[in-house]
């Protein structure tokens, strides 16, 4: 059997997921529940729609991928297919009433006679009572029904729900793939594509969003220049600078600041160890990279990168943002 053809979906870097789902169609062994999990912006939802389209497509013939032009594909593209539906969190969470509606709707026989596919987006943001309610239908699903759950964090899901799903893992997308996607499909200039592809941390979604975000460029230049200027300055100035970044900032904006810093020290480390310019992300700052890389040791750079990753973990654990940034800035400025 030819297992080489992945499910076409317009996403990149998820070969395993695409092949795995393609195989379920080819072998006609469609699981009743699939959990697509992995980092944000890696194509989970896009692939879920493509899978739903392929299952119901009337024009795909021998191919495993949807034709994109039959009535079913058209209805799915406009989100008007009565048998292919989406539920996503109403506010912060998926609520039990939403799951009740899902259970009611899937209890009917298929509208057009094909597969009933229900996409539950952010299934990791489901209240326990909603998850338990869903569990009953996952245990005894109506015939011809497929649930496609997408989630970033498996740890916030009930193990009983996870155990009833086929797991399909999504990986962070390789930087080179994102870089060429930005150039080829979005016409982003190569220099910017390189930077965004490194900054986005493997998330195509984040890279695409950053394409149209004007403020990113200003912030990057200011932040990097700011941290360079702090070298040799007294402690209070360092703390002043960290307060400007950390105080009152939202989680998303702190996360972006950390990525910018991480990307900067990554460049220094790359240049320090390879002297190569092929993989540098901050290409517009090549001169600064050359001069700064000379000044610090590999060990120093690693300490700083570790500091950034610790700060990220602390923020994820809801630590006080101001203190985390103070601590980080001290590490970044004084470790050499």
């Amino acid at each position, binding site marked *: 059997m030819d297992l080489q053809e992945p499910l076409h979906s317009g996403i990149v870097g998820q070969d395993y997921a695409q092949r795995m789902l393609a195989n379920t169609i080819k072998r006609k062994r469609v699981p009743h529940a699939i959990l697509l999990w992995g980092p944000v912006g890696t194509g989970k939802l896009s692939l879920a729609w493509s899978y739903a389209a392929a299952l119901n497509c009337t024009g795909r013939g021998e191919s495993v991928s949807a034709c994109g032009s039959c009535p079913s594909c058209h209805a799915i593209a406009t989100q*008007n297919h009565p048998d292919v539906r989406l539920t996503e969190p109403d506010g912060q969470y998926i609520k039990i009433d939403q799951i009740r509606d899902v259970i*009611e709707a899937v209890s009917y*026989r298929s509208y057009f006679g094909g597969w009933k596919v229900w996409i539950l987006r952010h299934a990791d943001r489901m209240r326990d009572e909603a998850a338990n309610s869903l569990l*009953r239908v996952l245990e005894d699903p109506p015939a011809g029904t497929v649930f496609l759950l997408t989630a970033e964090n498996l740890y916030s899901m009930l193990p009983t729900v996870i155990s009833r799903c086929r797991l399909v893992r999504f990986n962070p997308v390789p930087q080179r793939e994102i870089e060429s996607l930005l150039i080829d499909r979005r016409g982003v200039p190569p220099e910017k594509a390189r930077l965004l592809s490194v900054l986005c941390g493997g998330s195509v979604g984040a890279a695409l969003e950053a394409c149209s975000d004007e403020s990113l460029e200003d912030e990057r230049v200011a932040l990097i220049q700011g941290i360079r200027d702090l070298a040799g300055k007294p402690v209070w100035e360092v703390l002043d600078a960290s307060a400007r970044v950390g105080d009152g900032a939202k989680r998303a904006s702190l996360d972006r600041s950390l990525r910018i810093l991480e990307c900067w020290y990554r460049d220094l480390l790359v240049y320090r160890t390879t002297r190569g310019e092929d993989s540098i992300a901050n290409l517009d700052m090549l001169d600064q990279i050359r001069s700064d890389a000379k000044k610090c040791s590999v060990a120093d750079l690693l300490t700083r990168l570790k500091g950034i990753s610790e700060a990220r973990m602390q923020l994820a654990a809801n630590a006080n943002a101001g203190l985390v940034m103070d601590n980080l800035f001290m590490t970044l400025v004084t470790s050499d």
Partner: protein
Amino acid sequence: MDMHFNASANDLIPALQLVSRAVSPKSTMQVLTGIFMSWENNTLQLVATDLELGIEAFVDIQSDSSGKAVVPEKYITEIVRRAPTENVEFSFDSESKSMNIVSGNASFTIKTLDPSDFPLFHRLEKGESFSINESVLKKLIRYTSFAAATSDSRRFLTGCYATFNNEGITFVGTNAYRLARMTAKTNIEVDHEVSAIIPAKTLNHLERFLEDSEDTVVVTVDDRQVMFQKGNTTFVSRLIDGSYPDYKRIIPSSFETEIVVERDALFHSIERAALFVGDDSSGVRMEIVDGSVEVSSRSTEVGSLSDRIPAEKSGEDLRVVLRWEYLTDVLRLLKDESIGIKFAGKVKPICLQEQADEYDYLYLIMPFNTES
């Protein structure tokens, strides 16, 4: 390009009101908040669906062209209802996708939705098809669908189990605490027995539409949908997935006690007793002794009541406690002035029956399991 047609408000209003019943205002698919219109050869087709139930109706119009549009249900019925003159002129501008409606000096323009997004139900081509008498179908629904569950995680209980074979049509509705079954002994021609779980919601809409007439309704069932056609109006409903429980097992074969009572006397007595049924759903108690039935109820907060009605009894004395609505619901339907009620035991089903040449009716109530 503009596409025109003229319609009479008097023809259009009932058709719009009928199909509107299938529109679900809370639908997540925007196109379902509209009514699908297609006009061609002096006929206007109207369709609405909430994906569970679909209703289609046709209206005679004067058209010089053909076209399709989905118009928002919220406004279209009201626009036509409030039209100042009988004649209503529609013109659809395919460029701006808006519908202009002119009646007398009033002119409305409303935005429409894309008709190609509208999930028109597929006509049932395969599947069993047969005709039945309109009043028979209405009666089948009226006597059974009320007994189905209104909401239950066991979704099959929210539907009526319909069986069609050469001996007749049987509808069963149950919520696990009561059960109604009616068999209409009518001649229908099917190749083999067909059964389906039809949503009670659909049946209730259909029952409101049907009349007590001798007209014919064409029923078509396949494994996904059921379709009812009367004249040029069509109801299509999806079927509920799952297998219906083997309800026949709970129909008792022997009874301990039987009574014959005046229907109205029992009805009013139960209604009186219902007054003192508390929120704790303690139920109405029936104590059956020689010559009478004592009906009583008690609410810890309000008070208590007792009443006695004459009855002919055979068999053992018996005391049962039951939900009063389960009894009054069926007493409203039964025709005979004096009715027989059979009791299989203290916590076994209570059985009411009505038999006639053209139908058999059976109704079971499960009493409360109480030692008090």
